[in-house]
């Protein structure tokens, strides 16, 4: 009876469920299975070898460890700068400074850029000799500030982080501005009557109320930075000397350049588990809390 009454709903929702089931869960499962084999050549399935690939990954692969470190460094730099920058810009907008419309437009434009466009543009800007950043510094007689940027093993991951910050700080600003704007004006008036100056109002009242906004920004930035691929691949290609290689680029290199499908699948499945632990679990906990 219940099924009969819900037939139209089931018909409408079925295509989405089928697509998600095939392209997310079945492929993830297949990837997990593949990671337990020695599959190397297209057309011939590998044989089951247990967790050998994972043992090799964690015990004997220095590049993988380097990728883990680079990914962590990128996440720390990216989120560590984007979050506070978003907050500062949102407060700046909230203070009603003149020209905030223009500021908002300028800030949101990078968000609309594709990673390919951003990588190409920043690739030119980061070029050590003819790049616009170093050229500008030289024009200003600030030669001592010129940097090797993406050509340096020490600076390549920092350069990638700079592009990421540039691309996403507008998003963080937008979310925080929405959060700050939604604070009840009476609460801010109460703080004014209580004796809080502008700084104290933001630090003691407005910012502690931005937990939901911070959760949203953090989650989305984490999602993007854990799966970071295109920007790194196009900007640095993971180099020089693996100095900017991250998990996704390494997985791609291993799978499609070296044809180590099973080994690539183990990196891929590890990334899935990492995302699950870092992103899905906090979301689930948050949802359960809200549901009481």
């Amino acid at each position, binding site marked *: 009876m219940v099924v009969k009454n819900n037939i139209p709903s089931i018909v409408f929702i079925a295509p989405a469920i089928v697509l998600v089931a095939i392209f997310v869960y079945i492929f993830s499962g297949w990837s997990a299975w593949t990671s337990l084999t020695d599959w190397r050549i297209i057309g011939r399935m590998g044989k089951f070898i247990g967790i050998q690939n994972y043992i090799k990954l964690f015990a004997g692969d220095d590049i993988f460890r380097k990728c883990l470190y680079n990914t962590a460094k990128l996440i720390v730099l990216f989120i560590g700068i984007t979050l506070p920058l978003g907050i500062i810009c949102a407060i700046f907008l909230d203070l009603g400074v003149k020209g905030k419309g223009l500021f908002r437009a300028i800030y949101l434009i990078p968000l609309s850029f594709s990673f390919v466009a951003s990588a190409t543009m920043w690739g030119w800007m980061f070029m050590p000799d003819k790049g616009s950043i170093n050229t500008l510094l030289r024009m200003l007689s600030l030669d001592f500030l010129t940097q090797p940027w993406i050509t340096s093993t020490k600076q390549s991951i920092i350069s990638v982080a700079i592009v990421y910050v540039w691309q996403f700080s507008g998003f963080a600003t937008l979310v925080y501005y929405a959060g700050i704007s939604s604070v009840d004006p009476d609460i801010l*008036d*109460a703080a*004014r009557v209580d004796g*809080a100056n502008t700084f104290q109002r933001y630090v003691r*009242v407005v910012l502690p109320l931005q937990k939901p906004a911070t959760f949203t920004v953090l989650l989305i930035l984490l999602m993007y930075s854990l799966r970071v691929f295109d920007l790194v691949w196009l900007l640095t290609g993971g180099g020089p000397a693996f100095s900017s290689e991250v998990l996704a680029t390494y997985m791609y290199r291993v799978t499609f350049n070296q044809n180590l499908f099973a080994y690539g699948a183990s990196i891929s499945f590890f990334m899935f588990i990492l995302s699950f632990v870092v992103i899905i679990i906090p979301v689930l906990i948050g949802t359960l809390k809200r549901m009481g």
Partner: protein
Amino acid sequence: MAEVVLKELTKVFDGNVVAVDKFNLEVKDKEFLVLVGPSGCGKSTTLRCVAGLEEITEGEIFIGGKLVNDIPPKDRDIAMVFQNYALYPHMNVYKNLSFGLELRKMKKDEINKRVHEAAQILDIEHLLDRKPKALSGGQRQRVAVGRAIVRKPKVFLFDEPLSNLDAKLRVQMRTELAKLHQNLQATIIYVTHDQVEAMTMGTKIVVMKDGLIQQVSDPLTLYDFPVNKFVAGFIGSPPMNFIDTEIVKEKDCYAIKTDSFTIVLTPDKNKLVSSYAGKRVTFGFRPEDLIDESGVKDKEGRLIRARVEVIEPLGSEIYLHLSSGKDFFMARVPHHYKTEIGKEVGLVVDLEKTHVFDVETEKAIF
């Protein structure tokens, strides 16, 4: 001394919306003054101007004899209770109460003492560790009041603080706030749109409309001697009955004459209404000033025969919705009054409590 004086206070929004217009008012020390009026009359704006939350367009505000026009809210020695409580959601009750004191760099011992004193007065000591979301509406209201009293300010400002409470709790809090005023002996300016709150709590009431003061007086004077039709209609529940009619000369007196009844005014009103003879006026009388004709001996010239349209029994009394000719009005009769819909009843007007208003200016003639 914490008297508040407003001189020619004017607040204009966006260059053309006049919220408060040349407002003059004196609130004496320890007075419980209520600003009452319909939505949009400028009462909350006036309060926010006193608090320093709105910049005034013109005029002067004095608190405790000191001109405070350019002084920020925190230095005006006022505390404010907001309609939606405006508690800090991320702080527990203790922090909510102590926040203002911390910002004033008061010593921890003193803060602790004051918070517990306020909590004791408001009976919220057991709630000090809770966050606002874990409190009921009434408890939040107490915390909001506590946040005000903990500061021991010169003047308390209340902006419709009971509007979000249910009817029963509102009555309870009304009494508690009145008691609090007696205990604290502080100057209070209280804004409400509820005339019952205004009448029951205020020692002085200011009735406002369209940014202008209509009348300032004590509750009973306001009720018995409204200066215009607006005040007469706004104060009192159910409101005063108004009938547009004509004044005619009858022998030695003047009378209110409608198609279906004639009310002869007492001779002492002759002087006041003589210039209105033959003109249209608004006749006003309160529902409780209509008395059942049975038992009234001298009812000539003050009897209204009316048809019962609706009966509203409230338990302690009955509201009758009546019609007489083209006119409709209400009567408030005792709970034992027997009648039924469609029946004709005779009611006698208490002539001492009638009012007549000028049709054009709406000012009270008496």
